[in-house]
């Protein structure tokens, strides 16, 4: 039962974690949005969640870092443990959980009043981590290099974060998320607002990042899941208004060539969705 170690340079231990989900039910008030999901997310691997619109993939993703409960009336039943630590334990502070799990959103959202440097360091600065300027410089450069953005912005680190192109902004958001060295990185359709070139750059980036983090990515784009992930989970919903369910989780190759369930086969071959 290892709790994350915090030290002045990196707030997290920088070790990729394994996530175990058992019988997770996610509610919006009294409406059951996601029903009875049990799965294991492997460390240092990319797990893609696919499925048609409205079947609960994003809701499930948000429950992994307790962002889901920011909606009024939202709650979960069941357990989510990260390397054995129950993140929904009553004594667990959701803010602490979110510091250890990073998230990248569909629409790039760099902070408009902050420079590129400040944006990257936001995870540290906004949490008032006191550190020497040189230490922070190192962290920012490392994060921007890791996001393949350093070469493009190194001469204008003090310019506002909103002055970049869409693809660059998304890479900035990834740099911001990785700068704090979270143990898990969640990505909610990170490429859906980007052009194919930027998408390719980000997929390459994800491939590199998995060596350091555990990555879960929700995507609408089946081909992206086939390209970029090691494991794939297929979510589906029976009728509109029913809760979403995890139908199958397996190695990507298997899901796309020889899935166990007929629904999965139907979805990946394009018969619906």
């Amino acid at each position, binding site marked *: 039962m290892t709790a994350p170690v915090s030290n002045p340079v990196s707030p997290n231990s920088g070790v990729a974690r394994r996530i175990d989900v058992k019988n997770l039910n996610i509610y919006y008030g009294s409406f059951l949005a996601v029903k009875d999901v049990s799965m294991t997310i492997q460390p240092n691997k990319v797990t893609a969640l696919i499925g048609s619109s409205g079947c609960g993939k994003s809701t499930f993703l948000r429950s992994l870092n307790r962002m889901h409960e920011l909606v009024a009336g939202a709650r979960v039943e069941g357990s989510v443990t990260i390397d054995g630590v129950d993140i929904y334990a009553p004594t667990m502070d959701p*803010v602490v959980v979110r510091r250890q799990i990073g998230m990248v959103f569909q629409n790039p959202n760099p902070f408009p009043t902050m420079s590129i440097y400040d944006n990257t360091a936001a*995870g540290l600065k*906004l949490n008032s981590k006191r550190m020497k300027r040189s230490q922070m410089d190192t962290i920012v450069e490392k994060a921007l290099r890791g996001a393949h953005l350093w070469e493009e912005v190194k001469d204008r680190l003090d310019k506002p974060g909103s002055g970049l192109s869409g693809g660059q902004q998304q890479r900035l958001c990834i740099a911001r*998320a990785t700068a*704090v060295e979270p143990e898990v990185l969640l990505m909610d359709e990170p490429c859906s607002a980007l052009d194919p070139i930027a998408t390719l750059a980000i997929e390459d980036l994800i491939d590199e990042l998995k060596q350091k983090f555990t990555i879960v990515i929700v995507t609408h784009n089946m081909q992206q899941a086939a390209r970029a992930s090691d494991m794939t989970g297929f979510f589906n919903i029976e009728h509109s208004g029913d809760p979403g369910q995890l139908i199958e989780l397996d190695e990507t190759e298997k899901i796309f060539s020889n899935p166990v369930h007929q629904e999965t086969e139907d979805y990946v071959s394009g018969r619906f969705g």
Partner: protein
Amino acid sequence: MTAERGIASSAAGSGRIPRWAPWAAILGTAVVLAAILTLIGFNIALLLVGTAVFSTVAIYLWARAVEGHRQGLDRAITMGISSLFALAMVPLISLLWTVASKGIDRIDVEFFTTSMRGVINDGGGILHAMTGTLIITSLATLASVPIGIMAAVYLHEYGKGKLKKILTFFVDVMTGIPSIVAGLFAFALFAIFFGPGIRMGVMGSVALSVLMIPIVVRSTEEMLRVVPDGLREASFALGVPKWRTVTKVVLPTAMAGIVTGVMLAVARIIGETAPLLITTGAFSSVNLNPFSGRMDNLPVFAYNQYRNPGVPPEPFIERAWAAALVLILIVMVLFLVARFISRRYGTELR
């Protein structure tokens, strides 16, 4: 107009009326109307309104004959709206012209550097009134801005359920309070402790605060609403607690808009006369202490000069107009600065 259906019949009429047509219509109608009115009794109002109405009709008929029914209607509506706008501008321009022409006589160095201390007739100035307005408005702003912004932050970021509804309702009610009522409230409040004869600069600030707080709350709430939720989510996802998200992400993003809103609120209350009449009183010398004694200010000064002129009345009336002109100029400067800030520092939010 032929009765054919189809593309051919929907084409415009045979030609277009010339570019100068609307002006010709206005000029022509004005000339004709002026001629008629000179015969039956000239009346500038009738001339203006008549020109507006008849030139619209004239341009409609002209355009319809030459261009087609739809174009004719289009031109007529354009003309009509433009005329209405011009008519609406007339009182504003008339007001500005009157104040400027009557007030300009006293705009001199003496006016801005002396007070009315020892002045019986000629001369004198508004130094005491200007310092009074500055002090009273500054105190009101100092009180209203923190309260207003914090209330708006609560209502937008934290509030929910019944308490939020009740507070929103009361803020809405407060925006409609007549200024004299705010003044009476401040007067009654201080009369409890000091008796009914009390007059102080700070009483005026209290009255103005009551008027200013709901304006600041409303405009700040609007600005907070404009900040995209995506920014808050990004901050939460980094594990930033809510209060820090508000102070370090949301408020800085909304700050330019909030500052603009505050400046507009100041411009609104700076000319309120009724509450200040009964709370601050009038005084001929400079008084820099808002907690002791009467303090004159621009609107009350202008009122008193006009209402109680001495003999001869001319210097008093002149001073009143000049004070009013100064007030208008101050408000204009505040508006311009507000626009500048909003344009220069406002963040483009996608």
